[in-house]
């Protein structure tokens, strides 16, 4: 049975209200398409996890999907404040959300531990900070070899992880280049994995460069061919970050009415990502295309 499906179907099948959902991507390959689909399907009471909530979680929080956010840096990257997140934390609008907060290293160590099926990861941070005072999940142990004090954080095992990659085959063997971020850990740590890709390619393309495959097929539950899934974030070699939108969101997100209007126009009234890209228009899309810049092939050798 083929794993290839639509984003609508994948979200419907794998994401239940109340789930712990991890959308991977450090600035790069952020799956806005999946975020919008969860908003459209009015998913509720989600525990949303990523190091940087970014605009994707800001929008989901504004749409009332979240009951809790697990994160390490909640800002609009390169722009400023994450206003819907702040409104929820400071004023409970549209609903109160719980927060669970870490340093970047601690947050990625948690998802790493989840991926490796370790109950915890040790790491050399958190010792001189108030963060452990407000987050009981940040603990300290004594190294049994050196006697030194070291921080530990527990594994994070999402119910669903949503990752995006440049390409995969139909079974979900995914190749990623550029900033890897937390895509691989997110996939390995989760119960269910939704993978979307810019392009589905022949298995043969993947097998010609196995060292580039970060996610193997048998841990992937659904594969969605979803070009421009990451907009306004970006995909290395495919399109640039739409920085104008990040700036625009800074204005939109100041006013709940403007946010509502944005969600109505760009999420609820839009059927899927294809329609969203159509709505962006050719001019905006073309402006975001980089020039080609290819790697050189390497020789794996054929051995008889």
């Amino acid at each position, binding site marked *: 049975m083929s794993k290839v499906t639509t984003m609508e179907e994948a979200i419907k099948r794998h994401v239940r209200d109340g789930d712990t959902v991890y959308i991977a991507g*450090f*600035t*790069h390959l952020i799956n806005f398409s999946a975020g919008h689909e969860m908003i459209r399907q009015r998913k509720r009471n989600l525990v949303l996890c990523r*190091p*940087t909530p970014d605009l994707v979680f800001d929008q989901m929080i504004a749409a009332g999907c979240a009951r809790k956010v697990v*994160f*390490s*840096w*909640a*800002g609009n*990257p*390169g722009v400023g*404040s*994450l206003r819907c*997140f*702040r409104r929820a*934390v*400071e004023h409970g609008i549209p609903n109160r959300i719980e927060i669970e*907060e*870490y*340093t*970047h*290293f*601690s947050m*990625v*160590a948690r*998802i*790493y531990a989840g991926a490796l099926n370790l109950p915890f990861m040790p*790491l*050399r*941070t*958190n*010792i*001189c*900070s*108030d*963060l452990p005072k*407000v987050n009981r999940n940040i603990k300290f142990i004594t190294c049994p070899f050196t006697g030194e004090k070291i921080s530990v954080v527990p594994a994070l095992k999402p119910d669903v992880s949503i990752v995006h990659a440049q390409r995969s085959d139909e079974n979900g063997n995914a190749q990623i*280049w*550029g*900033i*890897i*971020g*937390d895509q*691989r*850990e997110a996939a390995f740590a989760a119960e269910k994995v939704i993978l979307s890709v810019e392009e589905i390619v022949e298995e043969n393309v993947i097998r010609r460069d196995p060292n580039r495959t970060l996610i193997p097929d048998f841990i992937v539950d659904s594969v969605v061919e979803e070009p421009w899934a990451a907009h306004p974030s*970006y995909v*290395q070699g495919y399109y*640039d*970050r739409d*920085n104008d939108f990040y700036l625009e969101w800074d204005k939109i997100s100041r006013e709940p009415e403007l946010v509502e209007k944005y969600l109505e126009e760009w999420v609820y009234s839009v059927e899927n990502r294809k329609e969203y890209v159509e709505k962006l228009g050719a001019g905006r899309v073309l402006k975001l295309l*980089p020039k080609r*810049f290819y790697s050189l092939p390497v020789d794996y050798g054929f051995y008889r």
Partner: protein
Amino acid sequence: MKYSRNELMVVAAARELKNGETVLVGVGLPNLACNLAKRIHAPNLTMIYESGVIGAEPSRLPLSIGDPCIVTNSKSVCSMFEVFSYYLQSHRVDVGFLGGAQIDKYGNINTTVIGSYAAPKIRLPGSGGACDIAHLAKRIIIITPHQKRRLVDKIDFLTSPGVLEREKLEVKGKGGIKVITSLGVLSFNEKHGELVLESIYPGVTVEEIKENTGWNLKISELLKVTPEPTTLELSTLRSLDPSKIYI
């Protein structure tokens, strides 16, 4: 050549970087400082971004620490967990750049919350990598506008440790923090046990600095005037940010 205090701030930060060092770059002013140092006196500076990019040579001014332009033509890319563990945790980062909403006389930084944590007046973005960098980079450079509301007597929340806290750690941070402001440079002074004014920008008075500092700032016995930017420094800096986004 005329210059702004912000320009001198970036130039002063650049001068702190030595050739051959590795530096964990932030977006904005730290990025400008690193690129400036690389072009002037530190061609072998290795720029590392917490997004996992090593040895970046950005073709344009990066708009975030994950901008695609820092990947293309870089030396190496790794995952986020790897950059924090293989590089930062193993003390392979010589210099880390930080900023903050509140900074105290020991270089302790708050980027988490103004007011109480449970009921915040202003919810700030949080640590990100800052707490990790403050624990693990060999030296820390803090770049900040010199304002009374930023340079405070008491921070509301300790996000990232300063000089005294760092002493307890493996990195031995004593003296390892400099604060480069829009008016001068503060560094750790053993005798006073805190950050003191070490250098002052041309045209700035000690009174102006004291007025804009939230604690009774001590002044170094060897207070210097920061040398003005050279023509080369200034023209190079301006070419790095032609649209004047940051300066």
